[in-house]
């Protein structure tokens, strides 16, 4: 069966956050931040392990990372980890059936109860708090 015949959207479906509302946007952001954090985590291990090669190498590594570019990456990491953690807790509770509403007789226009205000507010809050955390970290790292 060729690809066209199968008609699966493929990876494009993951990469488009603009369809199906804020919950799908959160799904997209969770992926991006998860992968971003993983990349940072690996780089971070590499960076800090350089201390095993002696003081000189460690100081050279600091010269490389304690720079405006390095601080910008840290600002992003702080934003990513704030969103990923708060939204991650929402998802884990949801996976346990908590906060996803109660089953009842469907009534037109059938607004899905699993996409309730609690979940939406939690997504907005995790984005808002991530933005605040980034602002604060900018102040700490780039302020006077």
């Amino acid at each position, binding site marked *: *069966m*060729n690809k*066209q*015949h*199968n*008609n*699966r*959207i*493929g*990876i*494009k*479906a*993951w990469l488009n956050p603009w*369809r*199906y*509302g804020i*919950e*799908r946007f*959160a*799904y997209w952001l*969770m992926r991006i931040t998860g992968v971003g954090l993983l990349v940072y985590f690996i780089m971070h291990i590499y960076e800090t392990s350089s201390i095993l090669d002696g003081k000189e190498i460690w100081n050279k590594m600091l010269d490389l990372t304690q720079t405006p570019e390095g601080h910008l990456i840290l600002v992003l990491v702080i934003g990513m980890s704030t969103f990923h953690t708060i939204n991650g807790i929402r*998802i884990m509770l*949801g*996976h*346990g*059936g*908590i906060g*996803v*509403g109660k*089953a*009842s*007789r*469907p*009534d*037109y226009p*059938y607004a*899905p*109860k*699993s*996409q309730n205000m609690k979940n939406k507010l939690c997504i907005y809050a995790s984005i808002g708090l991530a933005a605040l955390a980034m602002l604060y970290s900018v102040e700490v790292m780039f302020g006077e």
Partner: protein
Amino acid sequence: MAAIKIHEENDQNVKSIAADIKPKNKILFKITKFNPHVDTHMKYVDYDVEYEHWNTVLDALLMIKHKVDPSLALRYSCRQASCGSCGMMINDKPSLACFTKINELGSDVVKIEPMSNFPILRDLAVDFTQMFNTHKKLKPYIIRSDSEISQSNEIKEFSQDPDSVEKYIQFANCIKCGLCNSACPTMATDSSFMGPQALTQAYRYVSDDRDKGKNTRLKIIDERHGIWRCHFAGSCSKVCPKGVDPAMGIQFLRSYLLGFRD
């Protein structure tokens, strides 16, 4: 024949209703044509459609089929969101053609494509074989050792109180249209994923207190391409035309496996 005298007041009503009916509107339909046995690529064919404000997308497609292009392949039956046959992508969103009014779309062009994540049979008709097979695999029926018919052929009903019905009636609303599977991001890449339709039906029976098949079903869904591939993106619930809210059913089902309920 006796003349029917319309009450003056009613006459006014009739007139004002008539005034509300606007002249025919015009709109462009861009419809996918594709025969996998012949064509290598999908193509869009344009059709100008005249419609009244009460017409659905299905009405327009049938007008095209009857008057312009009899070769247009589509599936439909009930025309009232009950049979689950007429799912398709309408302006990029999985929707039932019979449940979508052209007016409500609020666009000048209506793009019609076959439902994504399903193999195309021809044009807008897609193949449900995999979805139905998965649905069957999850045992969508009451499982228990006794039967409603006893050995002496007496029929005794498995009784149930109204509160118990409320626990599953939402999920029993599913018409197997497949829109949820079409919107699901996991379905888009994992050809073996069970999908929201089937998983939700597993929960429909697990949540029915006449059923004793919970452990059997939990064992079936607890596998590589089973329930764990759901990331709670919720797009299934967004497009479901019957208020089934598959995302809710799937999370409730998963909560058994995670030990949140027993």
